[in-house]
């Protein structure tokens, strides 16, 4: 079922012989591909420019002669660059900026907040089910009951996000009516902490890691405050992305703020959820949750082609995740592209032959069908 989607990932890329023959130096800085644009120039940390590929297989496309990509690290800087017309289009992940730009008539915006291709990214805390205090289900339950997603969304959702305590967004066919995910209950959390503490030397102390991002910094401070209210000791550690990924993959973490799971088909999340990928040295199932029932359900979804069997399988996955609690859900993680009014055909794109163009998924969009108003 998911085969077409897999073809559009790394597996399906056609690689140029020249690049295979010469995997070092020049080949890595001058990519060759089959896409609508050709490499023109790259200045790391400054810009990456591509020009129209005249031999592109879809006739009439792309419309643009050149596209320049500029890495601008901070969302606010990007917003300012858009407002000063330094750039035409920007991607943003920040709900506050998504809201500001959405509400302004000078800009047009596409987000995956309301609809998307497949499933969107989720914001959550990943708990290590293999080692440390979080390997104890009672501790994970205590953390889940101590976390108030309503408060998190109220504080950091900027009026744009809504609570979502499931692997799937509202409206998804894979989302069960009730997955059984614990509702915020401080008294119950305290009770569970008291029950689990004797098994952890009398007190439970947890380290929460995250990358050094200003918005994330606030979120983890709020979580720390909530978990400490339930009687746990919580320390925060902001680490660089490189180290952060090392620790996730290598399992040297207890709790980690994470976002993941955008996929055009639920089967593409197999590698992140399956017990078969939870083993050292490199576990892509970061939480290392080894529930065999999840594997069974994932296999059912993968091997069946009829819709109802797949729906049942993936609903089971969501229910089992709410039971095992490798992830503490809050809300979906929004992506958006905002452009000034000269950029045409990037929101709900229509192709020259009148068919619908590629939509927006997981923060990725296609510049192929865009043109600029003169």
């Amino acid at each position, binding site marked *: 079922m998911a085969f077409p989607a897999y073809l559009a990932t790394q597996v399906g890329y056609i690689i140029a012989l020249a690049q295979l023959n010469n995997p070092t130096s020049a080949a890595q800085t001058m990519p060759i591909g089959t896409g609508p644009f050709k490499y023109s120039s790259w200045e790391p940390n400054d810009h990456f420019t591509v020009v129209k590929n005249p031999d592109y297989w879809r006739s009439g496309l792309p419309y643009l002669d050149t596209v320049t990509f500029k890495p601008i690290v901070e969302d606010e800087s990007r917003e300012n660059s858009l407002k000063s017309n330094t750039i035409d289009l920007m991607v943003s992940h920040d709900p506050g900026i998504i809201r500001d730009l959405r509400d302004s008539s000078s800009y047009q915006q596409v987000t995956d907040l309301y609809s998307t291709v497949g499933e969107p990214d989720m914001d959550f805390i990943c708990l290590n089910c293999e080692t440390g205090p979080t390997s104890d289900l009672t501790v994970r339950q205590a953390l889940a009951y101590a976390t108030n997603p309503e408060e998190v969304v109220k504080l950091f959702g900027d009026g744009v996000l809504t609570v979502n305590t499931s692997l799937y967004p509202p409206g998804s066919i894979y989302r069960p009516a009730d997955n059984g995910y614990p509702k915020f209950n401080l008294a119950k959390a305290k009770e569970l902490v008291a029950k689990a503490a004797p098994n952890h030397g009398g007190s439970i102390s947890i380290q929460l890691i995250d990358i050094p991002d200003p918005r994330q*910094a606030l979120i983890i401070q709020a979580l720390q405050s909530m978990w400490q209210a339930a009687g746990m000791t919580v320390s925060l550690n902001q680490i660089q992305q490189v180290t952060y990924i090392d620790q996730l993959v290598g399992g040297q973490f207890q709790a980690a703020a994470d976002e993941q799971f955008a996929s055009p088909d639920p089967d593409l999340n197999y590698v992140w959820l399956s017990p078969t990928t939870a083993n050292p040295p490199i576990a892509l199932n970061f939480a290392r949750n080894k529930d065999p029932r999840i594997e069974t359900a994932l296999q059912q979804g993968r091997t069946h082609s009829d819709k109802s069997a797949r729906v049942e399988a993936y609903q089971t996955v969501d229910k089992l995740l709410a039971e095992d609690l490798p992830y503490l859900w809050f809300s979906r993680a929004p992506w958006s592209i905002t452009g000034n009014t000269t950029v045409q055909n990037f929101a709900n794109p229509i192709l020259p032959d009148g068919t619908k163009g590629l939509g927006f998924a997981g923060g990725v969009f296609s510049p192929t069908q865009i043109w600029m108003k003169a």
Partner: protein
Amino acid sequence: MPEMMAAPGVGAMERVREYEELKGVADPAIVSNASRSGLGVTFWVCFTWVAVMILLALLASVLHLTNPNFQNYNAVNAGPSIHHLLGTDDLGRDLLSRIIYGSRVSFVIGFASVGIALAIGGALGLLAGYTGGWIDSLLNAGSLVILAFPALLAILVIEAFWLPRTLLKLTIIFAVAGIPSLFRVIRATTLSFASREFVVAARAMGATTRRILFKELLPNVIPAAVSFALIGVAVAIILEGSLAFLGLSISLPTASLGNIINEGVQNNNLSTNPLIALWPSIYIFLLLVALNLMADRLRARFDVRAGNL
């Protein structure tokens, strides 16, 4: 102290004033009123200000302040009121409490690191300045090499890898960075006293090196040491603030002046609640002006020279 980073101006004032004296031009600033006999009103105003701030930081826990990390989600970004004299931040934490607790970090880092640097750098400077010879040449060359290397760079690299960042580690790193500067100040001052009559006389009377160092030279070196130590404290406070902007100050959620300002400029807070950044900025500004003026008055009063550093 890595004076050259953070604020290109810190430490430059004494050179400017020496040049003005050379030219016979007075400094008409209303704050520069020290005479050769006293420290002047400015010094005592600044001293009182800094003393009150230090006292507040020391007594923070007995002052019945709100817990600086307590998050009141019903009072997020609240303006100044009777409950929160300076308002609250974007997590509903009391800003007054955070600034007072945050100033503790600045004071500890500032005074402790400079204290350590002064103890080590000062002792070596005294020794090198008085004994001369190969010890002096070696230490002097060593300090030049370390000073030639942009200190900010070394601090950044060390901090990025030496986790987690605690008050103790920051203090140690700052102290090490400050040793060569304070060494040079004390060495130069010692040199200028080492050939004076009272030292020569003491030596002629058979005083031990130890006695000369501690009884004759040390008391004379102290004014210069204190004056440059105050500048050092100012630089350390600036450094903490600069590092906070890189997320390299003390780990969250501990408040430090730099951390609060950094939080205040992020997440669009400058538009939604500029007070978060404004209060600690004003606090730091007044503190640094006071420290610099105190150092300046001390130098003028005790005729401390920086020319030969």
